[in-house]
């Protein structure tokens, strides 16, 4: 408990230090290109009460959630299939590598060209960027599945549902949690690019507008506000989930 609170205090102190350094640098630089933190926070407050900040964040968040869920579901399914079947892996390994190495920008532009400037194209573009990373992580996780536990499940004739719930998923959960955490960071960055290129709303769109106006305060304000939302999800949802799936490991030590 004491350790935890001293850790939190250290984090808070480090954050204050960062803001202080930013404030001092901004004051010294005295430039439109680097607004001070208080100006950025003032923009956030103003935009949150009277502007489009909340609706833009909500729209972007919805895109993040949908494409994240699609990418995780498809990526997990593909990864498990590739990890289980050597034949499938030989056949499709190259596809995964090609997709993994295609720049996010290229995938996004192609999606918009082929499907038009639509919501579906945006979500597909983000998901396609994320699927190969999830698939690769899950393939490794599946290869590490224990054949001994598999045989135990056969010996005791567990139903397919019980196997999935009690044998397969718990073994994959640490890999799922890892893919989710690394995935969320990647997804929200790509969503912003996709919005910038072809959506009429969202945080990415707002940033592109303020970029054209050279309003650095607004650009920083938007990115800071959205980053806070993502941090809240990381600490409020993903980390507790990871701690939950690892609880039996902690019990052993």
């Amino acid at each position: 408990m004491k350790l935890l609170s001293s850790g939190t205090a250290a984090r808070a102190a480090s954050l204050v230090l960062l803001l202080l350094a930013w404030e001092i640098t901004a004051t010294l630089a005295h430039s439109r290109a680097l607004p001070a933190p208080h100006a950025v926070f003032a923009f956030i407050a103003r935009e949150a009460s009277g502007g489009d900040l909340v609706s833009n964040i909500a729209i972007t968040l919805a895109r993040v959630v949908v494409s994240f869920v699609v990418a995780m579901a498809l990526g997990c399914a593909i990864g498990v299939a590739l990890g289980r079947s050597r034949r499938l892996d030989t056949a499709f390994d190259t596809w995964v590598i090609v997709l993994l190495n295609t720049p996010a920008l290229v995938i996004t532009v192609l999606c918009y060209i082929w499907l038009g400037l639509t919501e579906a194209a945006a979500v597909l573009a983000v998901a396609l960027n994320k699927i190969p990373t999830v698939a690769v992580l899950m393939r490794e996780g599946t290869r590490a599945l224990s054949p001994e536990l598999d045989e135990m499940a056969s010996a005791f004739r567990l139903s397919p549902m019980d196997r999935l719930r009690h044998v397969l998923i718990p073994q994959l959960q640490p890999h799922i949690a890892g893919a989710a955490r690394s995935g969320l960071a990647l997804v929200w960055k790509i969503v912003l690019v996709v919005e910038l290129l072809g959506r009429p709303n969202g945080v990415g769109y707002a940033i592109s507008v303020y970029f054209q106006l050279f309003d650095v305060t607004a650009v920083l304000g938007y990115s800071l506000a959205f980053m806070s939302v993502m941090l809240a999800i990381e600490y409020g949802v993903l980390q507790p989930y990871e701690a939950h799936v690892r609880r039996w490991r902690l019990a052993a030590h």
Partner: protein
Amino acid sequence: MKPMSDAGASPLIEAVIRAKTYRRPDGAEMEAVRGITLAIARGEFVCLIGPSGCGKTTTLRILAGLDRAFEGEVTPDPATLSIGVAFQEPRLLPWRTVEENIRLVLPKARRAMDLAPLIARFGLSAHAARYPGELSLGLARRVSLARAMALEPDLLVLDEPFVSLDALAAADLRRYVALAADGGTSVLMVTHNVREALELADRVVLLAPRPTHVVEEVCLALPRAMRDGPWIEAERAALAARFPLLREG
């Protein structure tokens, strides 16, 4: 002694393994078993003894229905019997508690039953809510045995269940196995420990080195409860005199 009285009745299970070959990673074929016929009567305790790597576990996996890629047949199909297996390693699910591990293998109709009496019988009450990672190997093996026996199986299949345990923990587990056998459960146990086999089995089946086949079957008529140290030692010496393979055991 039940096995003797059941000798004329049809066996609980019978395996005829004409051949079993493995393909090694380098592609070469390796013959593990060549000609084993093994029948287990209802209520009989059979021990398979043989040198390490001779194919004991292979034979056991075939009998338990876990390996179907062999020449021969098992009658009746193992899938039609209730079989409780305790593997050499406990193979518990690390992410489920002791009680959940046991409950999970029960048929749906018995899933909700009160497991406390069974858990208490195995001296596991204090550990029911713990995770397998918190248990010693001896305790984990006991849970694995309790899991196999919770099924109230027709056949209990044990693969070296006492190996790498200290003498006390091993004796403790042997007691539970003997209890199950005395209760009428058929048991097939693989071991390389001759004393252990002589202490527990109604019949000891000696297997040859790979490719394995049956060298000899020895029936032990003396009731389990009456077998003491000197008797086991005398039987072991007599066996070792006939089968040099067993001398180190």
